[in-house]
């Protein structure tokens, strides 16, 4: 068992699961989407991104690309949240929440691809 593989796999899967946790639930009901979960998803996604730095293989590059996409989507979601609640000063409504959750849904797809890559890589090693 390789400890680096455990850590790497852990963060990639955790990034995906946290993302999913935030995403799941009706899209326009703010009470179903907790900001703490979005925060946790962003932090774990950033860590996953940094973990993928420096791998020069083709699959490493694809991994990095998926993480970049996921981070971009989640950070945009956080920006939309901040922009509407703090900068504009409006209370959270269904429309804004729908935007935020759909952005995180995009990130979820990227994270799913990342997990698929991880599984594919593992199966190919077959040990």
């Amino acid at each position, binding site marked *: 068992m390789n400890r680096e593989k455990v850590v790497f796999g852990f963060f990639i899967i955790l990034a995906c699961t946290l993302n999913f946790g935030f995403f799941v639930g009706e899209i326009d009901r703010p009470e179903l989407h907790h*900001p*703490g979960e*979005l*925060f*946790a998803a962003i*932090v774990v996604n*950033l*860590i996953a991104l*940094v*973990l993928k*730095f*420096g791998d*020069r293989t083709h699959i490493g590059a694809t991994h990095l690309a998926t993480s970049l996409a996921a981070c971009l989507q989640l950070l945009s979601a*956080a920006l939309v*949240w*901040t922009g509407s*609640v*703090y900068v504009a000063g409006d209370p959270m409504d269904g429309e804004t929440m729908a935007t935020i959750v759909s952005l995180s849904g995009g990130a979820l797809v990227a994270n799913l691809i990342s997990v698929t890559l991880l599984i594919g890589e593992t199966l190919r090693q077959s040990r």
Partner: protein
Amino acid sequence: MGDVLFLVLRRLRAPLITLIVVYAVSIAGMVAIPGVDAEGRPWRMGFFHALYVMSYTATTIGFGEIPYPFTDAQRLWVTVAIYLSVIGWAYALGSVFALSQDATFRAGAARSLFVRRVAHLAEPYCVICGYGRSGAEIARALDAQGVRLVIVDADPQRLAPIAVHPFEVAPLVLTADARRPEVLRDAGIAKPECRAVLALTGDDEANQSIAIGTRVLDPATAVIARVVDPVVHGNLIEFGGVQVIDPFRVFAANVALALRAPEVLQLEEWLTAAPGGERPSPPQLPHGHWVLAGYGRFGRPVAAALTAAGQSWQAFDPKFVPPDDAEDRVHACGGTEEGLRDSGIARAAGVIAGTDSDTVNLAVVTMARRLNPSVKAIVRRNKAFDQALIDAARPSFTFVQSDLMVHEVLQALTSPLLERFLAQVRVAGTPLAQPTIDALAAALGTTVPWVWSFDCDATRPGLAPTFGAGAPLRLSDLLHDPRDPGTGLCAVPLLLARGVIVATPAVTARSRRWVPPGSRRRDDPRTGVLDQVGSVGAPSVEDRALPPADTELRPGDSVLFAGAAGVEALQRRYLWDPALLERVRTGVEPPRSWLFRWLAARRT
């Protein structure tokens, strides 16, 4: 660049993750701990405010407690967060500074900068592999001629002086082993702007690898290699396309030339010296018996040259191992005096001090003069700073490897036609050398001429109408001053080469590849000196030395001229302005504009 970025990111993974975790924990804590607002009601900080507070706290800016004064629980957490973040930042910045000092990282960064700058070189340049004494001299000489340089050497110590040498344009420098193909590729040998690769390291094997690597990676690039070892020499000649220079054999050939045909050597030295200077006086070497001190890589070819020139010789060398070629003319000996006596210094016409120690050479000459005051001396100088020492011995002829290399390389790179002309002179000997010397002396006196070639490129605007129709262009037309057709230009046509340049409309002066030294024909009696086999796309060439003034020029001809300063620029005007040639040939200045040409056509 990509490599360096990856290296940085890879090395900074741990500090970056530490920073993310520190921020995440601090922000999560700020959000989790309950606070109170201005009226004392319970209030929880949002993620946005928590990030804001952490950002200015962690970077030690410290705006205070925003938006409401903190509770004691919050202050406790902020205290923890401050220490955590200071540790996180110290770790991250420390890693960045450590990385910037890291030798691997610096080498990688320097390499990627070098590769980028080579890729952006848009002007012709030469790659010099090996920055020893010869390499440094050649670099300075090429730099003075305005050639951009890329210099590669494995030893950073040798490259260090480049930073302080006054170069016209700073060369691009890489510390790497040029034997490796990727280093050659990074140095840009395969780019069309690369004129030539010079393999000048002190190691024959390395020069061989560089030469062969270059030929394989880009057969169109000219390669000049300094090689002394006969086996390597043979290998490169077999391989083909590489111009091999062995300074010892070149010098030996010069000695033979000085003995057999001094005019040829005189002409050669005259035409290849620095333009504008005074004509160098050729060495006057006496015929007779020669004594050689030192019978190694210098002594052997010189001895062979003496034999070829019909001289008798004897050599002595303390390091000589007798069962060599079983030559009874060479003996191992202990003392200089004994060696000189045994080699017959009393009856000798000349002595050749050719050991690899300057002090020994000096001692040999001094001792030889004491034993035989009329003896002439040829001295080999090994170190640059011993020049005063060697000059004090008043030698007739001095061998300095780096000077000779500069001479040979410049000749090969700057004027391939001159090389061809000199090769003809060597074949023809005095019958061609003497009239050339007379013509040059009549035109220029004793100054060293500028040498250039004039290409009759029919696509040039100045020559197109001439070649298109009308009277043939004669060589004498080019010898008139374009500003004043009554006076002549101070230039001597040395060689007319047919079919050197290929006139295709797409070819411009800038994009035309320079004629690689490899395409030169070698009918060289000094066989093995500048051997050339497997010439690169050799054109059908018909050379004519000292062409008469009424020779008719054809498109594709190239004429080698020797003349005074600035004449080349004047002559070049004929390439661009058709009116000039017209005026020279008819004496009437033709109308230049369309309207006046039309009027002139109507009048006739």
